[in-house]
């Protein structure tokens, strides 16, 4: 990226003053190397977001920002409904509420190493993963609507997981304001066989070792112990979310002109928050959030069942569940007054600091766990939200590594079988239905997540707590 014109506000904080149709500045959180390595499209897309009606304070980009659709991936923007603010299907994306959850096993790494291979096989057999996979659960129309209204709370009531899980999920496991009527028959049909499935691409289930601790006190509050094992699950709202994204993107792109909104890019498809289509989208998008929460809850149940075969009586409590493609109504202080804003995070994680009332009692003194997924075979990180993150970027942080090369390039460079064998030599067992899929997701096809996490830490968006390295990876 051409960094000419950026004002440096801190070691990992850059500002681009508004120009042309921009209503607010662009602010990017990254060190100089990451910023320079970002595609010029990130700047262009962040500038486009800054032109949208009702945007508040700035159009933000996180340290892992890369070229997305309309919004950059890693983009954060808040809109005020009282100032003509918009809600954007493009600002949420196709995989609504894609996210990560982390389960604590309390087991020492030796216990897993003793069963690593059979555990990997059992997880691979139990977790539906990859293109064309289907779940065991079939929902009637009435059950589908109940799931879309209830999210993880619905799943727990059906026997998937424990009530104690709910307070460790954003929105306590149930996104309010979901409207199943705003979800099309097609979207529901697309979901019919996909409840409790992992998906494909960069989605995964990993058994991970806590390899390093950076903040012993917070790690202890999170239940993270060095050389103990956790399980992380990365997936989203599956076909339902994809179909909602597809349909509302088109509807909003066509409707924008009628609302007098000039779209510099059709992908920024949006409508006023208070408009009928804006309200319908919010109802559908919230239903998709619940679908993602229910899906991760079901996968958690399946994971616990597998672990119980190997370690009877083990409970695997949930550390936390974060979503990274959402638009949520939040109250933030702007210029000295509290305002209710619609905060879009597209490939960005909410990161509430200590004391936030949304957090469960046990986590409130320390702050929200921020779960950052790495690529297959590399590290993932647990961070904690900070107080200052609210003033920096409406309490947001990065979400992952981002690709360093395209799928085509990766496919030319690596064979899936070789990637699996080379990771096995490094002690990581990978199981996937597709060797081609593994090649496209090869660890080196992704950027270094450590640099991204360090930049988020230095910028003050969130603070590093622990590093996780994989032992088993189930890939879609």
């Amino acid at each position, binding site marked *: 990226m051409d960094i000419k014109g950026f004002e440096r506000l801190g070691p990992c904080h850059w500002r681009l003053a508004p120009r042309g149709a921009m209503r607010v500045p662009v602010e990017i959180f990254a060190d100089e190397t990451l910023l320079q390595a970002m*595609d010029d*499209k990130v700047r262009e897309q962040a500038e486009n977001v800054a032109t949208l009606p009702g945007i508040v304070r700035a159009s933000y980009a996180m340290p892992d920002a*890369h*070229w*997305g*659709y*309309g919004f950059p*991936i890693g983009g954060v923007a808040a809109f005020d409904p009282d100032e003509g603010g918009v809600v954007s299907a493009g600002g949420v*994306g*196709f*995989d609504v509420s894609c996210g990560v959850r982390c389960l604590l096993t309390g087991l020492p790494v030796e216990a897993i190493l003793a069963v690593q291979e059979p555990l990997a096989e059992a997880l691979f057999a139990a977790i539906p993963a*990859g*293109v*064309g*996979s*289907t779940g065991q659960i079939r929902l009637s129309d009435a059950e589908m609507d109940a799931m879309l209204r209830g999210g993880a709370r619905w799943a727990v009531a059906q026997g998937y997981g424990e009530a104690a899980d709910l307070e460790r999920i954003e929105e306590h496991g149930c996104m309010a304001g979901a409207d199943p009527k705003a979800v099309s028959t*097609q979207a529901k*049909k*697309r979901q*019919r066989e996909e409840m409790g499935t992992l*998906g*494909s*691409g960069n989605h995964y289930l990993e058994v991970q070792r806590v390899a390093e601790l950076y903040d012993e006190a917070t790690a202890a509050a999170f239940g993270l112990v060095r050389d103990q094992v956790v399980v992380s699950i990365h997936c989203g709202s599956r*076909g339902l979310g*994809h*179909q909602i*994204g*597809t349909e509302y*993107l*088109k509807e909003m*792109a*066509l409707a924008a002109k009628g609302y007098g909104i000039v779209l510099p*890019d*059709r*992908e920024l*498809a949006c409508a006023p928050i208070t408009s009928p289509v804006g309200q319908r989208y919010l109802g559908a998008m919230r239903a998709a959030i619940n679908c993602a929460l229910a899906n991760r809850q079901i996968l958690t149940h399946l994971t616990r069942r597998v672990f119980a075969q190997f370690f009877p009586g083990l409970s695997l409590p949930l550390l936390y569940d974060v979503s990274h493609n959402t638009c949520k109504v939040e109250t933030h202080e702007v210029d000295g007054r509290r305002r209710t804003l619609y905060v879009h995070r597209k490939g960005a994680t909410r990161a509430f600091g200590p004391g936030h009332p949304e957090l469960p009692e046990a986590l409130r003194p320390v702050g929200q766990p921020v779960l950052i997924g790495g690529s297959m075979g590399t590290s993932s990180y647990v961070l904690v939200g900070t107080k200052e993150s609210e003033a920096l970027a409406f309490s947001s942080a990065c979400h992952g590594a*981002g*690709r360093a090369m*395209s*799928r*085509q*390039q990766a496919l030319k460079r690596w064979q899936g079988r070789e990637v699996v064998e080379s990771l096995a030599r490094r002690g990581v067992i990978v199981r996937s*239905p*597709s*060797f*081609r*899929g593994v*090649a*496209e997701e090869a660890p080196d096809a992704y950027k270094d997540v450590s640099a991204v996490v360090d930049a988020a830490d230095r910028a003050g968006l969130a603070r590093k707590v622990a590093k996780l390295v994989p032992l088993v990876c189930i890939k*879609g």
Partner: protein
Amino acid sequence: MSAWEHFEHEADIGVRGRGATLAEAFAQAALALTAIVTDPALVAPRIPVAIRCEAPDPEFLLVDWLNALIYEMATRHMLFSCYEVRIEGDRLEATAWGEPVDRSRHQPAVEPKGATFTALQVARQGEEWIAQCVVDV
């Protein structure tokens, strides 16, 4: 000459079809969509599926066409390798031929989530038509 190719996008993948007619370019773009998941040569064109869409302009029509295919792939658990496309004005009628996903034979890499407006272009270039956009995977 008809042809399809992928083009680069940082997070995802671009599909591009070329053809002597608009309909041929759309059919080739659909082959590029299949190629995101698997080698189209591995997919037997055994079962026909009828697809119709309508959109206000050719670019929206391309996105609708690819999204209709993504929907059929997802809900029927099928892959397609042969496309017969007819376009009249703002309407498209097509038959996609394919077979159910066979995970060991097709080695399906990744599922397309949706066709996007990013790098979306439907245009005549000299003697041929080009139809392209980025697909979120």
